[in-house]
Structures are given as structure tokens and as C-alpha cells.
């Protein structure tokens, strides 16, 4: 990736847009996600294929590489967890 690493607002916006694209949430539902919003197991659209798509899109859009050893169920429990994980990865 040649784009500069996004800042905190950028990571949040990128992640919301990505979830909207993969889960078909629509802008309003994506914007309404809070740190406590449940993802995997809560949103019916969030199946294992969606998890896989989200991971690959996170790599492409945030310019990060995700080692699958780092991925556990907790990351996808809530939006806050996913955002915190993304932010850690972006900051290397």
C-alpha cells in the first residue's frame, strides 16, 4: 500500500465503510455501530465467509498484514474490539 497510514478517525471510518460493504448494513446502520455493538454471533450476516472477507479487506484498505494466529473470536465479538485490533495493527 502506498497510501499513508490512516489516523484514528480514518481507521474508524474505513472500518465502518468496510462492514457496510461486506454486511450490506447501509450507511445509517454502519454509522450507528458503537464500541459495544455485537458482530459475530449477533449480526446474522456475519458468518465465517464474512469474517474471511472482512480480514482480507482490512489488509487491503488499512495497509496491514494480519497473521491468522492473531485472530481469535474476541476480535469479532464487538465493534470496539475490532476497532482496537485494527488500530493496534495500523500502528504496528
Amino acid at each position, binding site marked *: 500500500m502506498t497510501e499513508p497510514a490512516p489516523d484514528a478517525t480514518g481507521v474508524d471510518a474505513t472500518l465502518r465503510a468496510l462492514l457496510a460493504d*461486506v454486511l450490506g448494513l447501509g450507511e445509517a446502520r454502519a454509522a450507528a455501530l458503537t464500541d459495544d455493538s455485537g458482530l459475530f454471533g449477533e449480526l446474522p*450476516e456475519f458468518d465465517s465467509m464474512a469474517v474471511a472477507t472482512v480480514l482480507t479487506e482490512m489488509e487491503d484498505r488499512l495497509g496491514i498484514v494480519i497473521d491468522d494466529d492473531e485472530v481469535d473470536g474476541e476480535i469479532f465479538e464487538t465493534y470496539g474490539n475490532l476497532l482496537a485490533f485494527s488500530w493496534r495493527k495500523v500502528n504496528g
Partner: protein
Amino acid sequence: MIEHLLRIDPVGAPRATVLIVPPLFEEANRTRRTLVLAMSALAAHGFAAVLPDLPGQNESLVPLVEADLTRWQDALAEVAAAIDGPVIAASVRGGALIDHRAGVAAWWRLAPVGGASLLRTLMRARIAADREAGLNSSLESLQAAAETAPLLVAGNALSPAMVAQLGAAEAQSVEPLRSIALGADGIAGTPLWLRAEPGEDAAMAAALAADIAAWSTSCGIS
């Protein structure tokens, strides 16, 4: 063997034929409806539009495990050769990995993607499913297993040749080519190929058809 294909004709003689090269695997299902809408819009622009089944995909009787990218490239070349008059290949996502050997007058690619990225997503879906079943797999272990035996990823049985070719596949340079992405500088629309549930985007279909028609004109095809 030529597979089943969907063909939509314009009223009267076509200006040219647009050969739609669909995305690969699950992405093909997610985009099919919108691509068919785009084909109808192309017919309104005076083009014939053809959407072939790749061997092992959609309604093909070939088991997917017998397919690989080379076979898909051959199949597309065969479909293109059987079409009368000028042909424009319009490839979406992974379709761009298999369109370069088709003898066409021009190429148009929407959001082309590398094979490694597609393969990684498929393998990750397998890893996630394995995890739910209490099994431990990794990209490395799946990659190693795929060297000698077919790999089942997200419902797709991929041969060792398919996995190896996909892992290394990049869209090849072709001429003349228009490559376009979604977004402010490209086509307005949604990346339906990522969508967990199938959707459709009629406005995007119309935009795709208009863009392909304009590209055909600027290539001097018609």
C-alpha cells in the same frame, strides 16, 4: 466443450458483443444479478452481451476440482472465438485473471483483484469454519495440504493446480485496456462481490453499461 451461456441481444444487428467475464467462486453469485441487469442495459445501447459459465462454475456439469485458471482461460478463448463480429471482454474482479488469452478487440476491467487475495479469503473462510468445529488450521497448513490433494474452501473443491495458479495469478497486461474501480474516480456503486447476502444495484448496472459503451466507441469499435 462450450458451456451454457446467457446471451441478451439488442433489437436489430448488434454494434459489437460484450463478453462478460464473471468474478470467480462466490463472488460470481453475489454479482450475477447486477451483471445481468448491465447486460440488458448494454442491449439497450445496441450491444449483444454474453455471460458464459466457466467450467465448474454456475450450471457447468464439470466438477470444479477438474478446473484451473488455464482451463478457464482456454474456455473463454473458445467462447470469444465463436462470437461473430467484434468482441469486447468486460471482466469483473477475478475475471481479469483469465481474460488475456481471449482474442478480443478491447478489454475492460472492473475492480481487478490478484489471485492471492481471493485465495487468502477462501482459505480464511475455511479456517474460521474449522475453528467453529474445534479444528486448528492455518494458511500455511492449508497451503501445504493443497500441494498434493484437492482443498475444500468455502464449499469449493480446488485442485492443487488451481491453488498454485490462483496464488500466483495477476491480471496480465492487454491492449487496449480500460481498468476502472468503484468510487469517486470510477463507477459509482457498491462492491456487491464482497456482500455476505446477495444484493443488486440497478444504478451501478446502468453505469457499467454506459462506461463499456463509451469505451467501445473510444476504441473505434462502434
